[in-house]
């Protein structure tokens, strides 16, 4: 029985793929995040492949059973590749739609962050009770303008 085909080179490859993928995932642009997802996905697929025994093709009559590679991780990787492909397609669609709607594909700040920025801009970061701001300032009701517009419009004078 042969041991797993993993060696230092394969783990370095996995590490580089996942590492580059993670640093791309930390970007704000959806296209880069997409590339990151692809890289991490391929790194993880390699990891699964190397989790099984290496050897000849797992076909009865072609290879002696003791010399066969482990077919199970290969089957799993096929599934994982299909899933990654689907997610990649969907992320592409989202980033295209985002670009179509807003002109860029950046992941925006979340609502609480925007709220804090707005309050800081008005110098009212301390507790403002409910009802102090009109609904049209509420990000759940209205799409907020791009950050530079907001700063220009309502920044401290």
């Amino acid at each position, binding site marked *: 029985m042969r041991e*797993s085909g993993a060696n230092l080179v394969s783990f370095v490859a996995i590490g580089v793929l996942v590492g580059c993928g993670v640093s791309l*995932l930390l970007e704000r642009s*959806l296209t880069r*995040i997409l590339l990151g*997802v692809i890289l*991490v*996905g391929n790194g*993880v697929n390699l*990891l*699964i492949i*190397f*989790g*099984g025994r290496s050897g000849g093709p797992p076909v009865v009559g072609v290879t002696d059973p003791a010399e066969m590679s482990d077919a*199970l*991780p290969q089957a*799993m990787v096929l*599934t*994982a590749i299909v*899933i990654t492909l*689907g*997610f990649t397609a*969907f*992320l592409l669609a*989202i*980033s295209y*739609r*985002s670009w179509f*709607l*807003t002109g860029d594909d950046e*992941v*925006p700040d*979340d*609502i*609480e962050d925007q709220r804090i920025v707005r309050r800081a801009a008005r110098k009212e970061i301390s507790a403002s009770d*409910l*009802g102090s701001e009109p*609904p049209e300032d*509420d990000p*759940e*009701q209205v*799409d907020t303008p791009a950050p530079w517009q907001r700063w220009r419009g309502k920044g401290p004078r």
Partner: protein
Amino acid sequence: MTALVPLPVLLPLLGAALTLLLVNRPLPQRLVSVSCLAATLVVASVLLVQAYRHGPLVVQIGAWPAPVGIVLVADQLAALMLVVSSAVTLCVLLYSIGQGQGETGESAPLAIFHPTYLVLTAGVTNAFLAGDLFNLFVGFEMLLAASFVLITLNGTPLRIRTGSTYVVVNVLASMIFLISVGLVYAATGTLNLAHLAARLDALPDGVRLSLQLMLLLAFGIKAAVFPLSAWLPDSYPTAPAPVTAVFAGLLTKVGVYAIIRTQTLLFPGEQAGTLLLVVAGLTMLVGILGAVAQSDMKRLLSFTLVSHIGYMIFGVGLSTVAGLVGAIFYVVHHITIQTTLFLVAGLVEQRTGSTDLRRLGGLARLTPLLGVLFFVSAMNLAGIPPFSGFLGKLGLLQAGVAAGGALAWTLVAVGTLTSLLTLYVASRAWSMVFWRTPCQTVPSTAPLPALTVGATTVLVILGVGLTVVAGPLFDVTTGAAIDLRDRTPYIHAVLPGGPP
């Protein structure tokens, strides 16, 4: 009887295929999806009775024997989850039909609502039934892919904005899950849960602990446990009401289910108990404090959702039978109630065009029924005595007291505090929306569709009915918890000849 086990996955998938063919014919499309989910509910109920009486039902797909082939296992826990989830999905489907979600015609993209919804259901049931780690992963991916489509339905700017966060976070969680799957396979050479239960025990402690933590990390993101929960309140509220409702009810609970399953079957020790208890307490506190600060109904409900996930993790972290009983009962209660609350919020939005607490007011006079529906479910969530929320929290707190120790007592205190704060949040929301004199909004005069109100009422009655059937329900959850702690019924059912 085991032939029924794959049906909860197959029926919705079949329905998805049919509804995709019927995209241009709304009436047959709706009939198909409703009948598929109704049939799933019936099958799930039969499975629950069978699993309760005769122990776990196992199907080996394609008759490949267990450690190699794919197995579907319906034990008491899985069957109970199936019943609750299919009942809830059916009600939400009726609600969405009443609301006109999935209409064809001018708004063409919505025609994909029904097929996607059914794929989501199939993913959820597949995750519940999965007998091996990779099939669990596939179940997660099915429901995720469907949820991506549902959360960005129509592709409006707001939904794309929040949807992109949701997609990225969940793809990342899937990657972490996939890494754990790869590592588990590399370490043990199997992914069958029953087989793993035997083989993981032989691993060195450090390796086992790191596998456990990797899996917990992946499921923790899906279940929205505190340090990993920030994505949830941002992404859920913008989706259409029925979508948010079914996400809130089911998707996080699938994560909780996966945590319960892996913590009891694969890692039965108490290694992660302290960690789980600490994050449970933080989840409860941070979640409910977030809810206190919100001024929008749907965001407020999303934060209570995060907060109450903490109760379930608390029960799992105690790693006693009583804790598990409480956790499972709480999952059942919370699936029903959280879905109901989001549906009521959707009704309020449909009636008035807003869910902003600062704008709404005086709705009780306009629509007394809505006021009653929201009041009953909000009190149920907060845990006022006759309701199931009280029973679930009582069970968990008793389990905490019985477990003893400083940490468990702290968690009991935090749980009580969270319950009180939930009561505060719920009653504040109720009085702002339904009670005080209206300030700004002119409510639309169009009456609400009977089907949406009907579906919501049925869910509210189900939630209240949990109290009535609390005795038998506790029997089932106790049976499930004892089986989970014991592990042997599950392992014997899957591998009758013992692990190879």
